[in-house]
């Protein structure tokens, strides 16, 4: 098992470098330089001053040298300084990560906690009212623009009913609350963003859960389990569920980039000071070091998520973690 994890981790290294390479080139090959904002708007800046500024940021060197320099510094988690406020990029990102992680992990828990049972129920009770309702819900979940849903719920719960706050993560008088009060306050602020962030992926997961479960229920070993007189609940939850979860774990791993990407939208709408909002601000200001920093951290989070999904997968299906050939099945690539 440990061997398998190490092998998977080594496999992720080239993927990570691939992601940073593509991001770096795409961002830096764009016409115009970030120094344009500081210089072209200011007529007093001379051509020489402009060159000096470019030199300071290393923008005068060829792009592949810039990338190698970036990598060298990256190894020590040095993303350079922000062009906007000259603060260390890593510090800027670090203070934003916890809130983004909190929102994404809470919505993952919601997605699993609701999506899997929903999928199982609609697979077991096919064509029931519950199944039909779930199907409708799934298609709406796939199709609804989440930012629009946010606006509607904000105006319903925040403005019309006035029971949920609609921006930020804490109240103005947060400092005076007791510990319990603080937790309650943050929870209240996060209810809307977390549930909306979960909504879209929830639909996807329950759909996959349903079709995977339907596929499993038809198989011979389930018939055998029933034939030997096991209770229906035991057949479903012990034999079928474990096997049906496998493809869902993979899908979950693949949905992480979407969740992280989605945080830009939620954090902008709900004015949450997380990584997504920082990314939006940095993109607007052409703050290359911060953009690269967040893209790399985002990629890392995604890869860690995928790794966890792989580990969960091999835990559920021990054949996976054996070296190819030894298990009698060849590992799918």
């Amino acid at each position, binding site marked *: 098992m440990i061997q398998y994890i190490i092998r998977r981790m080594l496999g992720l290294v080239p993927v990570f470098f691939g992601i940073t390479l593509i991001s770096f080139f795409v961002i830096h090959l764009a016409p115009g330089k970030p120094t344009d904002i500081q210089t072209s708007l200011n007529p007093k800046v001379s051509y020489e001053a402009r060159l000096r500024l470019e030199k300071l940021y290393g923008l005068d060197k060829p792009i592949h040298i810039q990338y190698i320099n970036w990598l060298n510094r990256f190894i020590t988690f040095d993303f350079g300084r922000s062009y906007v406020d000259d603060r260390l990029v890593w510090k800027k990102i670090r203070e934003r990560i916890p809130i983004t992680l909190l929102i994404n992990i809470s919505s993952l828990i919601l997605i699993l906690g609701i999506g899997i049972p929903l999928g199982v129920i609609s697979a077991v009770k096919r064509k029931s009212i519950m199944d039909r309702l779930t199907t409708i819900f799934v298609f709406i979940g796939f199709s609804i623009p989440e930012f629009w849903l946010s606006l509607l719920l*904000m105006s319903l719960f925040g403005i019309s009913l006035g029971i949920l706050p609609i921006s930020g993560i804490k109240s103005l008088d947060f400092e005076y609350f007791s510990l319990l009060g603080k937790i309650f306050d943050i929870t209240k602020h996060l209810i809307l963003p977390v549930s909306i962030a979960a909504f879209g992926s929830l639909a996807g997961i329950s759909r996959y859960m349903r079709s995977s479960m339907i596929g499993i229920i038809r198989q011979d070993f389930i018939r055998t389990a029933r034939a030997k007189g096991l209770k229906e609940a035991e057949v479903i939850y012990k034999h079928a569920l474990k096997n049906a979860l496998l493809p869902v774990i993979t899908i979950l791993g693949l949905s992480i980039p979407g969740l992280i990407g989605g945080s830009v939208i939620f954090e902008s709408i709900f004015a949450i000071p997380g990584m997504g909002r920082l990314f939006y601000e940095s993109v607007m200001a052409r703050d290359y070091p911060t953009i690269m920093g967040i*893209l790399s951290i985002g990629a890392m989070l995604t890869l860690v998520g995928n790794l966890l999904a792989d580990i969960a997968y091999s835990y559920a299906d021990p054949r996976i973690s054996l070296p190819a050939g030894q298990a009698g099945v060849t590992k799918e690539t």
Partner: protein
Amino acid sequence: MKDLIKNKIAFASFVFIIVIIIFAIFAPFIAMYDPTAIDDQSLLTPPSKYHIFGTDTLGRDIFSRIVYGSRISLSIGFIAVGIAVLIGIFFGSIAGYYDGRIDSVIMRFVDIMLCFPTFFLILAVVAILEPSIFNIMVVIGATSWMGVARLVRAEVLSLKERDYVAASRVMGASDGWIILKHLIPNAIGPVLVSTTLGIGGAILVESALSFLGIGVQPPTPSWGNILMDGKSTLGVAWWLTVFPGIFILLTVLAYNLLGEGLRDILEPRLKND
């Protein structure tokens, strides 16, 4: 086509899509006002018989803006997905046909692209390159081809073992001929489904970008940037938020349902209800 009519939900979606396309093509005849005409006599008026969906903060008619916006939103959806499909077929057929090293390099690249928080990349590229409609189409297309590539590769992998491909090779056909004439046309079925689903997805991405102010730039209306105007008047003018959102929802829903219907028709084996 006959199967499509039998599948009521898919057919209704198909009809809805046609109606929206007609909206887009004949926008000048359907919209009652110029979508960018400012009217200071009727700022933020609720829906009435003159403005059926009301007006915005500049007195522009929401219905006309939605009708004209469908041109932008739909063309971004179509062209972005067209680009994605072309890239996907190209990489997928090459990876499937020449297995071995070429295949593993391409599939590694697909893995890398799948691990990207794509929306971050789209946002960065569009904002840095300047948000034009053309850039949005290209960037959405260039970041959403991986699914198609995987599908085509899987199809090609099994198709290339067929007898007719061997026969064609024996008769001296080149690799390019076999891929273009025999493999791609036969691998296109599943691609059609993911194309349909992809158009819905691209419309959603465009609307999110425009909503953040990085997509289609005002005064050109797109479904996303009409909603952006709605954000500032939330609680005052519900019609600014509700109507464009419903159009996005219904259109994307129609593409998803049509895609699902096509899947049932093209691959009856996989039908799961």
